[in-house]
């Protein structure tokens, strides 16, 4: 499929996210892995409560993840410790009954290794921004060192030094996580009613150490015009706008920091059909203009199909199928995907009257009592959550 050539921007590796609920735990996301390539739109669909939004929020470090790790631009930004702790507990349990000396040593090593992994995960999770900032500062210093060395007059040198100080400050405050931004579902709830549009959009820049008011204003106006609003709107408050315009403000806020990646969490679900089309067109334009990578979370399949290059289908915290959007609609394999596709309403009364919805019942559909399932690649680029028997069945379905 030629996917190997593409640069992997975001990699989610065995992500598990649990929430405490009374005595027990709720596993919102259960062992989900996927990759997002640079420049593509990755769609995530599933019914409400299946963990789409939680996945998006975990990537942004809004939650501390329970297990697995998330890599952005090759750097680990989130890491959970659950798997390591489980391994340690298992090893300790075995150690109690074990009598064989060599096995004991082995187990001790496992425990030590996992302890080290936990340390590392904690460090990465906490310090990823600092590591990234340090790298940036170093790069800036190196660049300016060359320039200063090349400068001739002392005035020029001092000017360059001043510039370096400024850049250095910005670089030291830069955080890797700002490269990922989020567009929220509800345009009313996600904008502070007490802030003007200018303040809302500029907030990110101010937090990141930019203090030049003129530069900030310039940026705000530029971005407002880019999302289809006008300069005059900068002084207004969110309640003075319509739903579609509010969503545009949300988009402006997310792209002002020039992120590489945007997580769009149901950005059009709360909007009217006509405004939906406006916002989708806007996102499409911005994507080309700013070279964005978008993770698009939605439940409206026709929009997702229109907008995304690849689609992942989630069901009860698990990724059940993942492939390119054309392939998914042409050859859906997992029964849940089939039931999802059969539920899409189309503007065609005659075929609608004949449409029969496939009902998915996880209990009746699968028998995982002996043969445990996992996410497997059936054909290159097409992953399905299945066990051995089902894998064979799917292959047969595809005519392989």
């Amino acid at each position, binding site marked *: 499929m030629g996917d190997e050539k593409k640069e992997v921007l975001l990699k989610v590796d065995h992500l598990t996210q649990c929430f405490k609920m009374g005595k027990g735990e709720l596993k919102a996301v259960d062992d989900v892995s996927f990759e997002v390539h640079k420049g593509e739109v990755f769609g995530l669909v*599933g*019914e*409400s*409560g299946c963990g789409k939004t939680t996945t998006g929020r975990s990537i942004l470090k809004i939650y501390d993840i329970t297990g697995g790790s998330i890599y952005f631009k090759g750097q680990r930004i989130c890491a959970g410790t659950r798997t390591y702790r489980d391994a340690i507990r298992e090893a300790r349990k075995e150690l109690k009954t074990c009598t064989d000396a060599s096995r004991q040593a082995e187990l001790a090593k496992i425990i030590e290794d996992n302890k080290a992994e936990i340390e590392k995960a904690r460090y990465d999770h906490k310090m990823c921004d600092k590591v990234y900032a340090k790298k940036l500062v170093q790069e800036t210093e190196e660049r300016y060192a060359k320039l200063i060395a090349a400068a001739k007059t002392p005035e020029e040198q001092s000017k360059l030094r001043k510039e370096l100080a400024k850049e250095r400050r910005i670089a030291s405050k830069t955080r890797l996580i700002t490269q990922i931004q989020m567009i929220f579902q509800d345009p009313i709830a996600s904008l502070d009613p007490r802030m003007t549009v200018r303040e809302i959009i500029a907030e990110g820049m101010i937090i990141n150490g930019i203090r030049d008011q003129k530069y900030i204003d310039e940026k705000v106006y530029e971005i407002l015009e880019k999302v289809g609003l006008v300069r005059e709107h900068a002084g207004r408050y969110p309640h003075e706008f*319509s*739903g*579609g315009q509010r969503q545009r403000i949300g988009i402006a806020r997310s792209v002002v920091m020039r992120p590489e990646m945007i997580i769009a969490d149901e950005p059009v*679900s709360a909007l*009217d*059909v*006509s*405004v*939906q*089309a*406006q916002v*989708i*067109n806007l996102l*499409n334009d911005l994507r080309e203009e700013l070279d964005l990578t978008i993770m698009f979370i939605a*439940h*409206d*399949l*026709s*929009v997702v*199909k*229109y907008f995304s290059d690849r689609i992942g289908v989630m069901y009860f915290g698990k990724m059940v199928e993942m492939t390119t959007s054309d392939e998914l*609609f042409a050859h859906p394999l997992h029964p849940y995907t089939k*039931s*999802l596709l*059969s*539920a*899409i*309403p*189309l*503007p*065609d*009364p*005659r*075929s*609608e*009257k*004949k*449409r029969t*919805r496939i009902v*998915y019942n996880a*209990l*009746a559909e699968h028998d995982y*009592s002996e043969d445990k399932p996992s996410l497997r690649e059936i054909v290159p680029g097409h992953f399905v959550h299945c066990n051995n028997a089902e894998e064979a069945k799917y292959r047969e379905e595809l005519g392989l």
Partner: protein
Amino acid sequence: MANILEVKNLKVSFRTTGGTLKAVRDISFALERGKTLAIVGESGSGKSVTSRSILGILAGNAIVDGGEILYDGKDLLKISEEEMCKIRGDRISMVFQDPLSSLNPIVKIGRQITEAMLLKNKGNRRRARKAFNNTLAELRKNMIAANPSRETEITEMTKTFDKAAISALKMETAYTTAYSYADEVHETAGDIVFLLEKDQKVNMKLELKELAKKLQKVKNRFLTQGLDGELSGLVSETTELRREYVQAGRNTVSLKQKAIALLTKIGDFTGRLEAEEKPDFLSVGYHNYKHPEQSLDGMSVEQINEKTVKSMNEEYMKQFLTYAESGLKYSHDAALAKKKEVLSEMAAARKFYEGEYTKSSARSYGKKLASMVEASIDPLEVVKDSYAYTFRSSLLHAIDQYFYFVKHNPKEEARFARQTKKREALIAKGKTVDWKVVPKRVLDLDELHQEVSKTVVTIDERYTRYVAEDTNGNAAERSRELVEWFRGQASEAVYRVSKSMAKEKAIKLMKEVGIPEPRIRFNQYPFEFSGGMRQRIVIAIALAADPDILICDEPTTALDVTIQAQILELINKLKAERHLSVIFITHDLGVVANMADDIAVMYAGKIVEYGTADDVFYNPRHPYTWALLSSMPDLDTKEKLDAIPGTPPNMIYPPEGDAFAARNKYAMQIDYEEEPPQFAVSDTHWAATWLLHPDAPKVEIPKAISERIERMKRKNESAEQA
């Protein structure tokens, strides 16, 4: 088919600080019984306002400027609040857009669902009893008047009918209760067997206890005739199995197999019961009343049916129907005479209301006319003439309206002149004025005057036609209809819903709308539910009262596709089962494709296109419909979406001409000057756009849509061939 609801020339506006906002500007539509009407449009187009005015729940600052909403012979805009309370939520119920704000946060879900059922049942019993008694008394009166010599016989006959119906329906209630328990046991047994076979965790002790309890309630004289022994055997087996479970303290393989075997047996048994024949209860009731000495014990249902139906028809029904026929004819003739009386008065009335009059004289004469018209309504008619029924309120309302504007118009003119002057003076001084003059609300007095006479003329015309086309009452058919109606009323009068029955019904409803583990959910609070679940609860509540009309205000907008499809299917199913008429409001045309029979596209408070689903989807004519269709992608869309630029107009200052002109690619000069009338495309399809005028330039449907329609047609054809 008859129209169940008619909206005529409805106009609604809102008083706001900025001026009067015209939310709905003169719309008319009709809803047929058992059909679905979809109202489609952007937010702010007046869809929700229309539905809310049907239910009479507009906000406090709303003014209904005119029009009428006819339901069941009543104009919903004019009836009193007490009458409205009987209709709202009971006959017409609504599913709201935002489930969070339409549920009470401090009351458990179960209580919220059962509340309406219990209250409605209580009211219904009273109402039906009253209607039954009143109409039967009326019928008796007329029957006696028609045959004065047979008074004692007729009195005896009506008494028999009353007693037979009531006793029959008591039996029927018992039967249906037992039947519903049988149905439930059947389903539960099947569910448990499924779970057990799949090795799922089931609380067998609890389930078996409940099952035994319910099995006992299945026992009924007619339902389990001759099978009582088998039933009690099953009950004791179930309790025995439960005891074994308690003793074992855990699930074992042998116990599981035993349980599966027993449950399958129970399932078969209840399945068999459900297939049994149903007795004719009215005949049985008659038999029990007339011949209490002849016992029906030990007979099978078929034998009972044969015997009782025969005896009732021969001894009673034939005679009763003849008498009822004569009674109906008598009352019909009396009403007809009264109608002729009204007609003779009409010439004078028309003259009076077309001339000059004072308020008090117009009102007193109106009241006199109204009582004449009311006296001319046939009391035995099952479906009553709506115009005659609302004559009093609509005439008096029109008179009041006229005299109000006689007083109000000069005041309003003066206010407008004063404010305009003030504003112009300020502008002349060179000051910036940040307010606009509120447009004046002045109505044409001539039109209002005509409105008054029109009410009288309508009743005149209707009565003239009625008298001319008189079918002599068609008494034979009507008498049979009336007997059916009595049966319906009687069944409502004796149908009692107890708390536990309401709970079972609520749990069934919750299961129907797709809520897992309804028994646990029943006792939870709204905050414990997710968004989709809350929406389902709201739908369950709306359905609990068993309404005639269901208004769905964007019920699936907040839900994802699978649940959306489930809920649409659910509404469709209920529509077919309960003969429900649905008004479905949405902004997503795709959703209504398989729901709607008719579609009305609304923009800026007006219906711009109206037609059947096929008309609107395969042959859209209004540019706004084109825009709506092309702004949503379907599965084959690749090109850039054709979004509608801009936002809907501010309806405080409605634009001249066509409201959509400013956002319309195809707008012509005339669109900015004059409002387009409704151009008929076919009998069922019209659109309000100047493009359909014969002089308009030919404009093709946008390519994206025509291609899509082509594609859909091809697909349908190939599907048909296959």
